[in-house]
């Protein structure tokens, strides 16, 4: 729409006059975004400095891509990228589809009481904090007193110190996440399932379709748009993986499967004081997350005409 400059300015003035009060309402939030979200983005230039926390940018040496080089050619690069992708993959293959299955099971239930019970019970763990859930995991898996090992011993097995063996880390983390979030994530799908036209089911019944056929041909297609939206929304988060819980569960002996980019960045920065390398690793991860979100959105737009923007 080509408006001449003068006209554009005039309507701009009009819009300003009609919305200056709104702009004042917007101001606190806007300032917050600038100070606490965008100002740190300027701080990302730390990734290009040999940053010294006491001297600041003026006193630190600009090193170009040196920090990226150190991170990417070092032994931790392959490990952290592989672990990030593997944990994201486990999430994608197990934690993402399970809530959909749960939602279908819930809506297929005939007893209202059971349905309510399942919904309430599966939703509850979401309200328990990460610290407490991780504390439970660590204690349940304790080799001497943990209840899981007690069950294993009951069935004739040997107690294992699961937390120190790298091969157990991903299953432990995935099961924990599943327990914590499956009920929460199923809520959206249950709502979508409730929105499917009942007439479709009645028509299918008249045609003699069985339960599985009805689920396959009506229920699933009915929630595909929701599934796509959730997938696109979560794909960026998957790369960030749950570093808050990984930090609580991992230990040096399980770094080989548990150390992801964000935990590495955290360790390098906050614990080792190597801010340049830590920021470089964090920036690397943030850019990949951004690319994935944009790509996921593009793909979903092409495939299903469902997109977030």
């Amino acid at each position, binding site marked *: 729409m080509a408006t001449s400059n003068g006209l554009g300015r005039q309507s701009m003035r009009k819009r300003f006059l009609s919305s200056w009060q709104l702009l004042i309402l*917007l101001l606190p939030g*806007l300032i917050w*975004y600038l100070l606490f979200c965008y*100002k740190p983005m300027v701080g990302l230039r730390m990734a290009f400095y040999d940053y010294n926390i006491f001297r600041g940018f003026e006193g630190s040496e600009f090193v170009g891509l040196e920090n990226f080089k150190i991170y990417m050619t070092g032994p931790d690069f392959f490990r952290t990228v592989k672990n990030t992708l593997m944990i994201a993959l486990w999430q994608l293959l197990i934690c993402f589809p399970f809530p959909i299955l749960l939602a279908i099971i819930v809506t297929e239930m005939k007893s209202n009481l059971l349905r309510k019970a399942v919904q309430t019970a599966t939703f*509850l763990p979401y309200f328990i904090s990460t610290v407490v859930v*991780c504390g439970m995991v660590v204690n349940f898996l304790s080799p001497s007193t943990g209840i899981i090992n007690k069950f294993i011993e009951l069935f004739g097995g040997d107690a294992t110190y699961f937390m120190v063996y790298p091969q157990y880390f991903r299953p432990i983390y995935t099961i924990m996440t599943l*327990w914590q979030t499956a009920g929460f994530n199923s809520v959206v799908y249950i709502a979508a399932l409730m929105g499917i036209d009942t007439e479709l089911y009645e028509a299918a019944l008249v045609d003699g379709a069985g339960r599985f056929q009805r689920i396959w041909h009506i229920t699933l297609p009915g929630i595909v748009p929701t599934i796509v939206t959730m997938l696109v929304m979560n794909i960026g988060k998957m790369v960030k993986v749950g570093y808050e819980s990984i930090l609580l569960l991992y230990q040096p002996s399980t770094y080989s499967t548990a150390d992801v980019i964000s935990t590495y960045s955290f360790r390098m920065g906050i614990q080792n004081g190597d801010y340049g390398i830590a920021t470089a690793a964090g920036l690397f991860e943030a850019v990949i997350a951004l690319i994935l979100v944009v790509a996921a959105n593009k793909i979903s737009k092409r495939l299903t005409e469902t997109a977030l923007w």
Partner: protein
Amino acid sequence: MSKERNKGGSGARIEGRGEKIFDIAVTIVGIVLVIICLYPLWYVFIASVSRPLYVENGSVMFRPAYFTLESYKEAFKTPFLWTSFGNSLFYTFFGVLVNMVFSTTMAYALSRSRLLFRKGFTMLAVFTMWFSAGIIPMYMNFRDFNLLDTRTAILFGFAISTYNMIILKSFFEQVPSALEEAAFIDGASDFRIFVQIFLPLSKPALATVALFYGVNRWNGYFWPMNLLTSDSKVPLQVLLKKLLVDRTANEMESAIITSASLSNQTTVIYALILLAIIPMAVIYPFIQKYFRSGITIGAVKG
């Protein structure tokens, strides 16, 4: 879920054997799911009220053995337990207040199509969901503002969650514009329309979002752990992290600890876990319906 309905119900008359098996399978799966979700919590409870010895040797599995409240007595002696509990209440209450002031004002402004540069401002907020500076630059930012080890950092540093703000925005967009226009004709200012019309009309949405913020404030540990260093300022979750995770994670190294004191620790830890869960468990039945509606809106509009 107010509009519960039964998709299989109308098919009852032509129900075959396959359908019956399906129903039984669904019921069994449902019961198993309930047990899997609740058993860990039940175990924490029974272990916390049993004698340490019986927890350690594995005789406590499904019900308490030799009921005792000793572990709770011990747990209550934890230094800074009540301080951190009070801190958590403080951060949650005032934090949510800050969250709501910043989020509602911004969401309201962004919900009005008259707003100058509306698209640009919305993008500015939404972009932070896809790209954020990350842990280290954020930490440095707090350091630059001299906010390390201050309560201000916790209260104001996390004033807006973009996701929650967008939920509020979409709620405000649904308020019929006729109400706003009528108020305008009467000469009301935007501030008045916002406070006297929009806020009262969106009470359910405000409650939902306040609860989202509240649960996150109460449960969060990561930023308080990094930003706060004084024992007198840390919230409960940070204290629990030291007690539950740091202590037990070193079990291998501290295997020399005599078995008596170790088992004692175990039940005390379970008592602490239970104490940490209780506040949430108590309010959970009242807040879960708000959460369900909030999640649904967030997914549709987000």
